[in-house]
């Protein structure tokens, strides 16, 4: 049985009283533990929505999501939070770093709810920042960083608590080709450490070393090779 399973997931957004957008329609898929998976499709096909549901930061309108042996839909808000803090790391397309916080502070915040002390948080943040090649930028705030650097800070934040599942939304879209290749190399290294990596990209040209690709079109899964 797959480590992550979606069963007939639907997600709709109500824009107005009469206008509803169906972002996902009956999406069913399975992802094995330790694999690297690409979700692709044109803009507006529902990639980010699916990634958000897999990352438990969005609830599906219908359908069931399983992570390991837990059915996420049945969990309370606090149980989902516990699952997220222990198992999941997310890199947003827009990075979503907290302005006015330095890079190392941004990276270390996921450790606060885990009860890690200030000194240890700082030590581990510097460690992962070094891993993504940004140890020299640890005191810089997001507005002092380039797009590629923000991307790497976001990756560092997503991996600092050593999650089993790492989700990356369009990890190569906001950065230049050279940085994108560097990020992908980093992800490949992470995959070897047993993490399940799920990426979304509208253009999967650069992302070649994946175990499986799912293609979405207008919210429907059209290919799961």
């Amino acid at each position: 049985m797959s480590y992550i399973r979606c069963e007939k997931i639907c997600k709709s957004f109500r824009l107005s009283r009469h206008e509803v957008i169906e972002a996902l329609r009956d999406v069913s898929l399975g992802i094995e533990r330790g694999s690297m998976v690409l979700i692709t499709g044109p803009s507006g096909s529902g990639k980010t929505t699916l990634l958000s549901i897999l990352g438990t930061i969005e609830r599906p309108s219908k359908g069931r999501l399983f992570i390991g042996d837990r059915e996420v839909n049945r969990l309370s808000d606090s149980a989902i939070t516990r699952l997220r803090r222990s198992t999941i790391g997310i890199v947003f397309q827009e990075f979503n770093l907290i302005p006015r916080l330095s890079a190392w502070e941004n990276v270390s915040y996921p450790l606060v709810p885990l009860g890690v002390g200030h000194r240890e948080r700082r030590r581990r943040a510097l460690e992962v920042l070094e891993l993504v090649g940004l140890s020299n930028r640890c005191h810089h705030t997001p507005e002092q960083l380039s797009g590629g650097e923000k991307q790497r800070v976001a990756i560092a934040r997503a991996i600092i608590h050593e999650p089993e599942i790492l989700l990356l939304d369009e990890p190569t879209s906001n950065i230049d080709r050279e940085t994108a290749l560097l990020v992908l190399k980093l992800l490949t290294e992470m995959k070897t450490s047993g993490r399940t990596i799920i990426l979304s990209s509208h253009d999967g040209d650069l992302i070649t070393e994946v175990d499986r690709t799912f293609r979405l079109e207008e919210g429907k899964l059209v290919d799961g090779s």
Partner: protein
Amino acid sequence: MKHLEILLISMKNLLRHPSRTTIVVFCLVVILTPFITALAMLEGVRGDALVSVEEGADLYVTMDMYGRNGIIPQEVADEIESIDGVRKAVPRVISRIYVEGKLAVLLGLPREEIQTAGKIMEGALPSEGEVVVGRGLAQALQLKVGSNLSLGVRVIAIVQHSPQIMKRVFRVSGIFHPDTSIWSSDLILISLQDAIDIYEMEGFVSDIAVFVEPGRVTEVAEKIQQMNAYFRIQSKSLTRQYVKRAYSRKGGVFTLLYIFALVLAIPVMALVSGVGLRERKREVGILKATGWSTEEVLQMVLYENCIIALLASSISVLTSYIWLKVLNGAFLIQVFIAEITHIAPFRIPSRFGFDTMFLALTVCLGVTLVGSLYTTWRTAVTPPQEVLR
């Protein structure tokens, strides 16, 4: 460890937004300072009044006159003094009096009692035909030691609907010290006989102050009552109750008005503390997405508010202290003490108790929490992606 970390993050959050923090604290101080000042002043005035009551007589005896307090024969004082358990009985004339349009209190005491009536700033105690006046009255009427003060004695005729008052002139022999109890501010102290002459009540006084040996008040009160059924006896505990009730009512009305003002201030505070709300919402969304629980986010906001409340209430108490000790409660004292316009001519009593500090902190916390906790909770329980979208 986690709670300490969240506390540190809350402190950093406040430092990260210095202008927002400053504005919120400033608004709270502006709202809270008059309230704290008034409460401290009220406590001080009430405390002073109670001290005066405690220092006063144990019983006050008057005659019943149409169901009210009426004058009593002066000789009754000697009869009361002969009762076993009575230390002394002092006949007094005490009355409200208008002096050149200003309301004052006239107190006539036997010569031997005048010595203990109050601390004289300048001049001497009054002899016959002389008065000692309170600092407030002296300032209002521009009186100095040696000045003449004419006191209205009685209406002698009505000319064209206007009463013609017979007056008697007294020499000001002294002025009370400003640190003397606030009750001396508008006082005219005079010898008993002069007071009796003014009111033309020969052989009568307005009351008799009875000082009793400890533990014998009830027994003495009963004996006085047995002397004459028309005697009205007012005990110290009854006076104490009147004082407490009067100031509780004043304090209550002020608090009620202030709570109303605070309720009106809450939307303003919400608006002020909501500056950067969009950024705060986004921050909450990010924290939730990176593993923070709703409780942890609320805890962080609660700590921020606690720090702000602690800061604002401390500054408010300090500002109130300065307002009272340096500015002598200017522009607020007239709410609590009649006949004072803006600036008091005597030292305003004040008390900053633990309950005043606690109230300041609670009000601050209440106002800031109403302005921020609910909105944060609403954001925190929303799925993070919805907040970040």
